């Protein structure tokens, strides 16, 4: 499944934050968009996800697997997201967080999928733990698997490694990108740190005047 952005532009009133640009992200590929703070990187992801703040205006066409996402509400787009904060729901346990986005169905099968995911996240037996008892890396892994268990057709990564320390960042990068590649999910990463980009992946930069250029 391919994520295609065509003539996408973001503006704040008359100020153009991102000039029109187009690219396609193939299944299993992670494309990186870089830019300084305030350049509109996160707004670009919000536009794709369908929850751009009302102050901003987004234009252009976003399609996923040939389906135009424009008319769909955020919950129907099948676009998963990872943020700088893990945003695990504090009133739910780790296991309940994983079940939250999983499709409805037989509860035993859902529980089994949840436990499998915990094994893959190297967190077997953590289902009853409260999110605040986990370390930063563990929380990021739970957030990733929570998103993956919702069966997204694309992933948007909003600086998900920014709050991790240097050692953990390296291991989490390969962990996240590895799982996305293995599941053939097209992903868009925004960051201001080139080191976050997957090795060999395409990198675009938002330059002065909001121009998006391929590095």
């Amino acid at each position: 499944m391919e994520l295609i952005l065509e003539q996408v532009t973001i503006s704040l009133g008359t100020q153009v934050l991102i000039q029109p640009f187009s690219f396609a992200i193939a299944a299993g590929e992670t494309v990186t968009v870089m830019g300084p703070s305030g350049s509109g990187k996160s707004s670009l992801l919000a536009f794709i996800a369908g929850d751009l703040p009302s102050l901003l205006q987004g234009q252009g066409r976003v399609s996923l697997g040939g389906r135009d996402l424009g008319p769909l509400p955020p919950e129907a787009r099948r676009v998963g997201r990872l943020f700088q904060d893990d945003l695990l729901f504090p009133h739910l346990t780790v296991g309940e967080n994983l079940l939250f986005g999983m499709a409805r169905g037989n509860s035993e099968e859902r529980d089994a999928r949840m436990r499998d995911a915990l094994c893959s996240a190297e967190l077997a037996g953590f289902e009853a733990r409260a999110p605040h008892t986990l370390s930063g890396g563990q929380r990021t892994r739970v957030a990733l698997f929570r998103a993956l268990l919702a069966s997204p057709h694309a992933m948007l990564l909003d600086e998900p490694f920014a709050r991790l320390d240097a050692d953990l960042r390296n291991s989490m990068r390969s962990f996240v990108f590895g799982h996305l590649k293995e599941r053939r999910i097209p992903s868009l990463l925004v960051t201001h740190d080139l080191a976050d980009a997957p090795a060999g992946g395409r990198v675009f930069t938002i330059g002065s005047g909001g121009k998006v250029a391929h590095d």
Partner: protein
Amino acid sequence: MRFGVAQSFGIGLVAFLWGLPLAASLAAFAATALDFAAWNSLLHHPQLPEALPLSLWTGTAGLAAALAAALLVTMGFYGTAHWQKLQTSTAVGLSIPHLAFAIGFGFLVMPSGFLARLFVGGSEPPQWVTAQDPLGLALIACLALKETPFLIAMIWSVLAQGDVGPALAGHWRSARSLGHGAGSVWLRVLLPQIVARLRWPIAIVWVYGVTVVDMALVIGPTQPPTLAVIVWADLNNAAEDINARGSAGAMLMTLALAAAAALAWLAVSLAGKKMRRFMTGGPSSFGVPKTSTTLLTAAMIAIYSLVLFTLSGMSLAGYWPYPRLVPDTVRFAAWQGLIANGGPVVLSLMLALTSSALALGLVVLWLEAVPARWDRALTISAVASLTLPAIAMASGQYRFFLELHLTGTQLGLFLAHFIPVFAYVFIVLKGPFRTFDPRFQAVAHGLNAGALRFWVSVKAPLLKAAIAIAAAVGFSVSMVQFVPAQLIAAGRFSTLPMEAVTLASGGSRSLTAAYALALAVLPMFAFLLAQMLGHSRWRLAWN
């Protein structure tokens, strides 16, 4: 532990002026539990078997309707461009006192009221029972309409709290990306996280609704009335045994509320497991009914506007035959009457200004001089005094003041206003003062500013919006005091709400409307003034 002079002075003053009368009033109220003759008399009261369930029904139904409306409005407008604008409307609704609203609402829905003129017409007013109905529907509607802005404001203040707001906004986006519709995200993610912070506001609304006197006197059922009205009549009776029966009635209401609260807590605990299954059962596209929320919001704004319009129209109406939409003649007699008999207005203003000024001074002294660890005791006392039924507090206060020969005195009347005002002002100011960034003080000291200059030039300007709002809240709370004030005044003084209640039970409609409008407008002015005084360049920059 070493006590500084300012610290001891702050604690001592608050304890003497607020804590002592409060504690003594509570003790005097608690003592009524031991008056078995009064209990016996109460339990044989012929109207009790109907009045107690009626009170619980009207208060609970009013709360349920207000809560549902507040949640729908919040769900409909959270994160939209209209979010800020609605906060202004909410503030206006919030500033109108319950009593003034009830009088205006009664006039609006009465058979010859503006609603019937607008929608029914005909040559004669319809034969409707629109107020004082036996099921208390008018009282429920009034409570629901009046409490909705308060609950919206409480929900919004939780959503705006620094430790919650940004996280909830993130959870909102995250849950939507996991396949949940807006309504589902509210029910499964946001509400479970904020409900614990809303329990006290909900409790206050519920207790108020079950035990309200002034609104019930104006628009509530009469055959029988709610228990609060029966208790009120007993407490106003000079005969000692009847008065004691009133105190026992207030105690019964308190115990009934405590039992009902315990039942509600048990039900919520039992439902907890099912709720967790509901929360994690998988994505749901359940959205927010946008059209319904927009219509509901528009209807509420329209009713509030019509209530104010009706009060204005009635206060100025000369000859206004049914079904004309505007009066044939305009007369200023009601306003002239209100000004000529200016005593109640002036007394209410004086009490509001002095009690809010003293409360503000004392609270600021406390927050500046007393360490934060002492706040817990004061917070518990303040919340307890506001959560307890006003009629129960008033009953205890009356007995205590009677012992001190303070009933019917200016000092007694002032204290009856000051006690609730202090509690509200403290609750409003505690957060802004205690979360004030201490690094500002360090920076100011580094720039050679002493303590006084730091306070005047840095802290006070940064907190002036909160101080102004606290003053307005204190002023409004004082303006609307009815139950304790009427008992303590012992017929020797009359304030604006006392006059309005008396007039509403059979006085001239235009004069009643004028008093109700004065009661509504003065707190609104206070909030408007607070908003103007609290307006800051730096807040604009941050927004």
